[in-house]
C-alpha cells in the first residue's frame, strides 16, 4: 500500500514536470512540421515566464500575466519568422540568438523594473494559477485505488495542465483532419507543391511559428505563475532542449510527443524522488537519470529503434523558382 502511495506521488510529480515539456514540444511540433526548425523554445519559454510573472505581479491578475507571457513569446516568434522566413536566414542561428536574447533581456528588465537581483516579486492570491479540485475529490479520496488516482493524480492541477493535455488531441485533429493541417504538413515536406497549388508558403509558415509562440507562452507562464510564484533568472533550466529531444523521440507526432514528454517527466520525477537507485548491488547515480532523455534521443537519432526522419523541407528557407 505504501508502494502504491509513492507511485501516485511520483506520477503526480510526473504530470507537473511533463506539462511544460509537453507544451514546448507541441509548440516545436507545429513549427518543425511546417519546415521551420526552432531551437529557440527555451528562450521563448523564459521570456514568457518573465513577462507573465512581471505583469501578474504588477496587476495582480494571473490571466493578464498569461496574456503578457503569450504576447512576449509571440514577439520572439515573429523575430524568428522574420529572420528565417522573410529574410531566409539560418534557422538554427536565429534560434540560438533568441535563447541568448531571452537569457539577457529577462534579467536586465527584471533588474530595472523590480531591483531584486533579476527576480520578480513573489506572486500571491490572484497572481497565481491555483489548483483545480475536481468535484467529489474530497469525498472519493478514501476509496482504495480509484480514490487516490482521482483525487491526487487527476485532480488538483492548475488549469494550464489540463489545457496542455487537451492540446494533444486538438493538435492531432488539426494536423491530420483539417485542410490547414494538411497544408501545414505539406509545407514542411514539399513547399514547392503547396506553392504550385496557389497556397502561400510564407503565410502558412508564419501561422505555424505563431502557434509555436502561443504554446511556448503558455509553457513559460505555467512555470512562473502556476508551478512557481514568480520569475527567477534562467528558471527554464534547459526544459526547452529536453522538449526538443522529446520531439525527435516522438518522431514529430502529437500522441507520441505526449508519451515522450510523460516518459521524460517520469525520469525526472524518479530522479528527484529516489536520488541514487539501488538495483540489488548496482547503484544508478542520479546523474544517469538526468542524462537519460538525451541518451535516449541519441539512440533514436542513430536509428537503433526505428528511424527518426525530420520533415523533408525542415531548415530550408523556401525560395520561389524563377
Amino acid at each position: 500500500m505504501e508502494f502504491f502511495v509513492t507511485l501516485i506521488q511520483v506520477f503526480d510529480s510526473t504530470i507537473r514536470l511533463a506539462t511544460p515539456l509537453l507544451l514546448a514540444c507541441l509548440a516545436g511540433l507545429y513549427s518543425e512540421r511546417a519546415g521551420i526548425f526552432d531551437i529557440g523554445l527555451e528562450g521563448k519559454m523564459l521570456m514568457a515566464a518573465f513577462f507573465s510573472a512581471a505583469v501578474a505581479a504588477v496587476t495582480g491578475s494571473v490571466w493578464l500575466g498569461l496574456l503578457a507571457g503569450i504576447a512576449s513569446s509571440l514577439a520572439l516568434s515573429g523575430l524568428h519568422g522574420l529572420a528565417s522566413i522573410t529574410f531566409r536566414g539560418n534557422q538554427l542561428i536565429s534560434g540560438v540568438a533568441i535563447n541568448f536574447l531571452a537569457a539577457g533581456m529577462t534579467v536586465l528588465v527584471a533588474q530595472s523594473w523590480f531591483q531584486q537581483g533579476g527576480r520578480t516579486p513573489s506572486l500571491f492570491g490572484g497572481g497565481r494559477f491555483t489548483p483545480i479540485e475536481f468535484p467529489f475529490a474530497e469525498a472519493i479520496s478514501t476509496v482504495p485505488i480509484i480514490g487516490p488516482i482521482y483525487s491526487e493524480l487527476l485532480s488538483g492541477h492548475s488549469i494550464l495542465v489540463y489545457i496542455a493535455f487537451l492540446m494533444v488531441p486538438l493538435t492531432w485533429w488539426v494536423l491530420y483532419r483539417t485542410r490547414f493541417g494538411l497544408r501545414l504538413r505539406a509545407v514542411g515536406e514539399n513547399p514547392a507543391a503547396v506553392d504550385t497549388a496557389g497556397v502561400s508558403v510564407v503565410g502558412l509558415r508564419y501561422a505555424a511559428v505563431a502557434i509555436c509562440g502561443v504554446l511556448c507562452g503558455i509553457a513559460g507562464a505555467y512555470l512562473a505563475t502556476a508551478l512557481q510564484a514568480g520569475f527567477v533568472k534562467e528558471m527554464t533550466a534547459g526544459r526547452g532542449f529536453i522538449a526538443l529531444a522529446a520531439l525527435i523521440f516522438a518522431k514529430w507526432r502529437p500522441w507520441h510527443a505526449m508519451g515522450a514528454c510523460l516518459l521524460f517527466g517520469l525520469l525526472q520525477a524518479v530522479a528527484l524522488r529516489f536520488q541514487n537507485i539501488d538495483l540489488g548491488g548496482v547503484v544508478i547515480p542520479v546523474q544517469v537519470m538526468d542524462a537519460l532523455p538525451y541518451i535516449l534521443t541519441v539512440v533514436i537519432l542513430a536509428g537503433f529503434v526505428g528511424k527518426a526522419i525530420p520533415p523533408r523541407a525542415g531548415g530550408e528557407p523556401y525560395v520561389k523558382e524563377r
Partner: protein
Amino acid sequence: MTLMKSLMGAAAAVALTAGAALAEPALIFDLGGKFDKSFNEAAFNGAKRWADQTGKSYREIELQSEAQREQALRRFAEAGANPIITMGFGMADPLSTVAPDYPDTKFVVIDVTWLDAPNLRQVGFAEHEGSYLVGMMAAMASKSGTVGFIGGMDVPLIRHFGCGYAQGAKAVNPDINVVANMTGTTPAAWNDPVKGSELTKAQISQGADVVYAAAGGTGVGVLQTAADEGILSIGVDSNQNHLHPGKVLTSMLKRVDVAVYDAMKAGDEVETGVFTMGLAQEGVGVAMDDNNAELVTEEMSSAVDKARQDIIDGNISVVSYYENDSCPALQF
C-alpha cells in the same frame, strides 16, 4: 575619458590627502550583482553601514563579466584605493596574479582561504557551525521526526552546509531522519526553482516537515512550496524570514556584511592572513526577528544559545565536511 578623469581625480585626491595617508577603500561585487538579496547585497549593506557611520566614501564596481575581474583590480590599485575588497571564489585566480604587483595595497577576499600572498586578507566562514544551529531548531520544530535538506549544485561547500545541519539535528534527536537532496551537478542547479519545488514535495511525501534550502535561486522554490504546503522552511545566507512571514522557521546567516564592515573600518591598516568567521566572531548565526518570533519557542532559543556557547568554548565540535570529505551524520 572617464577612466582618465577618475585617474586624474584619484591622483589629485592622493596629493591632497598625502599628509593624512588616508586612502579610500574599494569594493568589487561579484557577477551576481549588488542587489542579489544574498551574498553581494550583504557586502553592500556592510559597506553602506561603514559609510553612514564614518561619513566617508568608498569606490565600488559591479562586475559584468569574468574578463573584468583583473581589470577592475588593477584599476582600483592604480587609483590608490586601499584596501580593495573582493567577493567570491571567482576572484582567487585574478588576485593571485594581481596582488604581488601591488605590495603596498591590501586586498581582502571573501570565501577564499587557500591563497598565499603577504598583502592579502582571506576571509572564510564556518558555515557548518551556523548550519548546526539551524539543524537543532529544525529537529526541535519537527513533529514527524524527519527533516529535509535541499542543496543547490553538488559541490563540497554545499555538502559542508548539509553536514553541519545533519549533525545539529542528530544532536537534538539521535533517531531523526535527515533526507538530503542536491538539485543537480551543473550551475543550472542554482536557478531551478521548479526542481526545488518538486524536491520539496518529494521530501514532504517522505515525511519531512522542516526543510533547509542552501540552493541560491532554487531555494526560492523550496521556500515557496514549503509555505504553500504548510510546512516550515529555513533560509540561507541573508535573512529570508520575511519572504513568507510565519512560515520560515529561521535563516542561517552568513555575515558577509560584518566581514566587509570590519575590513573597511580597519582601512589600510587591515590585518592580513587567513581568517575564519565562525560563531565566536559572529560570522555565522541564526536569524531571529518579528517574522519568525511565533515559531521559535523559549526552549528552542535557549538550546540554540547554549549550543552556540558550547561551540565557541569548544565543548561541542562540529565536524567540517572538508576535513576528510565525508560526513559522520549524513550520507550524500
